[in-house]
């Protein structure tokens, strides 16, 4: 449940559920949506599998024909293994930084601000506020702040911390910075959702039993918010691993910061090498599915939504 708390999932108090009935109405309610998901989620994945196995048309240049050319997977991995590793590494670091910034923030909103409900709801609005302004413009704002004419570069170079000619944008630092910034709300919201319902008497009890703040945090707060931390980690890692805005040259990246998303985009939309793009997409999807499977194994499917 905590996984989707950012969609407003865990806010309403649950009442005793009505016994679930069997009825033909269920089919009427389910079928249109399920049909939509099959048509526009399952079949596209099958399309990707078919495309990923295609080979170039021997007659028409730039066209592909259906085949069973599984070497596509080998060749994209040979060509792009560094991009795949970079994606995993960047996304993992961005997730770690988002956790370091996001957990205290979620704790602050969910526990410290609990006596002030109005301030608490305003603080929550501030966390989701970045969602209401264009993702691309926010990222470009950082690019301008970090640019050569911008305030940060000016301060750093006057301190001598930035060698002449060096830039902040177009580096590993700026890409990870952008990823961290853009996905922090995805970390804060699920952790907040678990902390906001944490029974404060448990913290008092630990304190009464001479638990130091550190012990209380380690043995009470952290285990009780573990579900939120796990959801937040997945929710941050998944979009970060597939992102190609932050790492693109027009934004915070450079050619040597390209991630797997950039390669998929370039192969599909620029080079029109559809089989390579499809194979890379499926490799990324498989990697994400392993993570999701581990998550499902821990929390079960009933708690997914």
């Amino acid at each position: 449940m905590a996984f989707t708390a950012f969609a407003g999932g865990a806010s309403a108090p649950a009442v005793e559920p009505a016994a679930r009935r069997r009825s033909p109405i269920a089919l009427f309610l389910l079928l249109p949506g399920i049909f939509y998901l099959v048509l526009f989620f399952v079949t596209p994945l099958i399309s990707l599998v078919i495309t990923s196995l295609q080979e170039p048309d021997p007659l028409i240049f730039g066209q592909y024909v259906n085949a069973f050319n599984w070497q596509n997977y080998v060749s994209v991995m040979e060509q792009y293994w560094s991009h795949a590793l970079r994606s995993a590494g960047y996304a993992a670091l961005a997730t770690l930084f988002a956790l370091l910034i996001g957990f205290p923030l979620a704790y602050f909103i969910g526990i410290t601000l609990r006596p002030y409900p109005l301030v608490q709801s305003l603080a929550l609005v501030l966390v989701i506020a970045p969602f209401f302004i264009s993702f691309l413009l926010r990222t470009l704002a950082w690019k301008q702040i970090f640019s050569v004419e911008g305030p940060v570069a000016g301060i750093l170079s006057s301190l001598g911390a930035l060698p002449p000619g060096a830039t902040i944008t177009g580096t590993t630092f700026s890409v990870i910075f952008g990823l961290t910034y853009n996905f922090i709300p995805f970390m804060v919201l699920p952790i907040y959702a678990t902390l906001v319902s944490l029974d404060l008497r448990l913290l008092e009890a630990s304190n009464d039993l001479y638990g130091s703040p550190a012990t209380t945090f380690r043995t009470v707060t952290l285990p009780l918010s573990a579900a939120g931390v796990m959801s937040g980690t997945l929710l941050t890692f998944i979009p970060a691993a597939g992102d190609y805005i932050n790492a693109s040259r027009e934004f915070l990246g450079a050619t040597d910061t390209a991630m797997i998303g950039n390669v998929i985009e370039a192969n599909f939309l620029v080079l029109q090498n559809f089989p390579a793009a499809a194979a890379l997409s499926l490799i990324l999807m498989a990697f994400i599915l392993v993570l999701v499977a581990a998550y499902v194994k821990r929390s079960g499917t009933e708690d997914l939504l």
Partner: protein
Amino acid sequence: MKGFGKYAIWAYSIMAFVFLLIPIAYTVAFSFNDSRRTNIIWNGFTLDNWFTVCEAQGVCEAFGNSLLIGLAATVLATTLGTMIAIALVRYRFKFRNATTLLIFLPMATPEVVLGAGLAAQFLQAGVPKGIGTVILAHTLFCLSFVVVTVRSRVVSLNPALEEAGRDLYASPVQVFWRITFPMLLPGIVAAALLSFALSFDDFIITNFNRGADVTFPSYIYTAAARGIPAEANVIASAVFFLAIALVLIAQISAGIRRRRLASV
């Protein structure tokens, strides 16, 4: 937590909020920049951009496309998603786990995979890419979020109210429209707003499926290479203030309602 720890978490959190808000402040501030061609360096304050929004070439057309796509995808996703949410909470059916997984997976799939998959499918089926395919794609990724949002509302609904309606000889249709639907409405509205926000700001899936049609984010992406006109900042800022106003009104009215219920 007391003493030093308390001050530390206040200071740390305020710094985190400032960090979150810096690019927003920057974007809004540069909507007032007296920029000639590119909007990179501060040239002085002006309100002109706000009055001549549509003068930057193509920006209003892109904005219009995004509104159209957002509205269409929101209506489709909210309708389909609400139906699924009710079925998930209220009814027993076969393949429950498979259904849950099918709803969950699109949210866990990287956008670039969803975008490439749909584009590959449209390519194979020979469907020309454009606003229509973008609407289909946006409906897909909004659908799961609608299910989650409305579902939490259905779970909190007291079934005794509907039973009371049935006991008073209301037909199933009357029970739905007079009792269930009004009680679900806050959840449905929240889901619709979320869908619209997701659709309006989506770039990655859109970029794979838009063909030659331009949405507001894809306009910004293309313009990024040569410099964003201040008019784009104006539109983004206006949308931002409108969204914040809506959220604040919703929060405050919910707070008032809670207080009124508590005082009864």
